[in-house]
């Protein structure tokens, strides 16, 4: 990926929140399969883990609630800027929006960080179109801006954020609810192979609307990457499959 455009070669990357803050060895992945690296979601101020953090499984997937804990943008830059600069992969920093007025200088900080080639803006699940539009305008800068829209609201939000200056949209994990063992309802993000049909449908519809979309959700097999690309996605983000070593391949069928 070059600094000012959005072409990914190979057209594969991780989804925010799946591989930490910098490419590393813990995941035991073949990084040559990736066209970019997306950081964990980063807020301006430090964020503690969610009080009711949890991971609940269901057939075909799991529900995750974390609160996106992170040490805050300044601390992340202190800890990881050097690794981003040395990374053989393009690094795209995922920003969690808290206040619109903070976005311009957050983006300027990232523009000055070597190795950062893009920004992905994570929209909260309940954002309204007007607010989304103002956030995207505020985050517009030199770096290409990907906007992660909630999957279940992507068809409504994607045209708005593209008009506001986004270079592409990516699909955030859909939300759901399960009954936890303690009997309480637990809400969170949904991952796993069961999500794939919804993700493919959404990517296909956005592509039919001539919007550049990075497909994501439930991709566990190379054939699903191919299906996303055939549906018109410009690239594909992998999520929880990366926690089990990545996609199976002819060279490594054991994944």
């Amino acid at each position, binding site marked *: 990926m070059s600094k000012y455009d959005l072409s990914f070669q190979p057209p594969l990357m991780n989804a925010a*929140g799946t591989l930490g803050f910098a490419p590393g060895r*813990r995941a035991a992945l073949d990084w040559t399969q990736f066209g970019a690296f997306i950081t964990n979601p980063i807020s301006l101020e430090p964020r503690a883990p969610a009080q009711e953090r949890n991971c609940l499984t269901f057939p075909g997937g799991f529900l995750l609630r974390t609160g996106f804990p992170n040490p805050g943008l300044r601390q992340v830059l202190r800890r990881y800027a050097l690794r981003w600069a040395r990374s053989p992969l393009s690094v795209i920093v995922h920003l969690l929006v808290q206040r619109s007025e903070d976005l311009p200088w957050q983006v300027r900080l990232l523009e000055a960080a070597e190795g950062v080639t893009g920004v992905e803006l994570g929209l909260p699940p309940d954002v309204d179109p007007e607010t989304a539009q103002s956030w995207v305008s505020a985050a517009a800068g030199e770096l290409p801006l990907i906007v992660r829209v909630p999957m279940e609201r992507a068809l409504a939000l994607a045209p708005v954020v593209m008009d506001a200056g986004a270079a592409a949209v990516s699909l955030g994990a859909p939300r759901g609810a399960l009954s936890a063992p303690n009997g309480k309802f637990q809400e969170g993000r949904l*991952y796993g192979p069961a999500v794939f049909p919804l993700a493919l449908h959404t990517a296909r519809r956005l592509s039919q609307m001539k919007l550049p979309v990075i497909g994501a959700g439930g991709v566990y097999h190379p054939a699903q990457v191919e299906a996303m690309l055939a549906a018109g996605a410009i690239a594909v983000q992998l999520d929880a499959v990366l926690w*089990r070593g990545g996609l*199976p391949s002819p060279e490594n069928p054991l994944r």
Partner: protein
Amino acid sequence: MSVYVGRITEVCLDSLGKLQVRIACPSGAIPGAGQYLRAWVPGDEQQALPLCLFPAEMQENGFLAAPPAPANWLPGMRLQLYGPLGAGFHIAPGVRRLALAAFGETPSRLLPLIPIALAQQADVTLFSELNPALLPPSVEVSSLNDLPEAIRWADFLALDITPQILPTLRQRLGLKANEPLSLKAQALVNAVMPCAGVAECGVCAIPARRGWKLACLDGPVFDLADLEW
């Protein structure tokens, strides 16, 4: 830590009726007491997440994993293993009276400490409401209600707890508010670890004396003195 291929050699029920598996693997893959492996069956897309496997018993060519095992794991299946991961227990050579306390659904994760302790001529008592079979005869088993007495007898306490137990631990140990624990203690915090350290996702975050610690990376065995409890 590295990537290994393992094979399920036996599926059995433990004495408490929980499914567990014996795994053959290279010696480098065998986790130490309290450590874990990230494991999955290649091609099994129904298992969306890897499993964190803890050892219950080590052997020369593999280990018996602490329960529970997935119901669809069968003898002969190949497993992809990654690890060993995390910080395990460390029992100093001078320990002579070891108390093991299992608050979870199985005491299995503490059992690898028994041969280590017996090899250094330590006395061992297991505090648990669940009595595992085939313990060495020299190991006493007692109720968790007896723990307050145990911490006056033991010189090392190894715990298996969930994060939910931590706020009540002081009471369970019979300690008054702010009363310090008079012996060295380590706790295996049995938190859900979906990413097993790959993402620092935060689900397994444990409140610590200074901020938060992740069970997957900083633990899962912690010095109790480092945790907020």
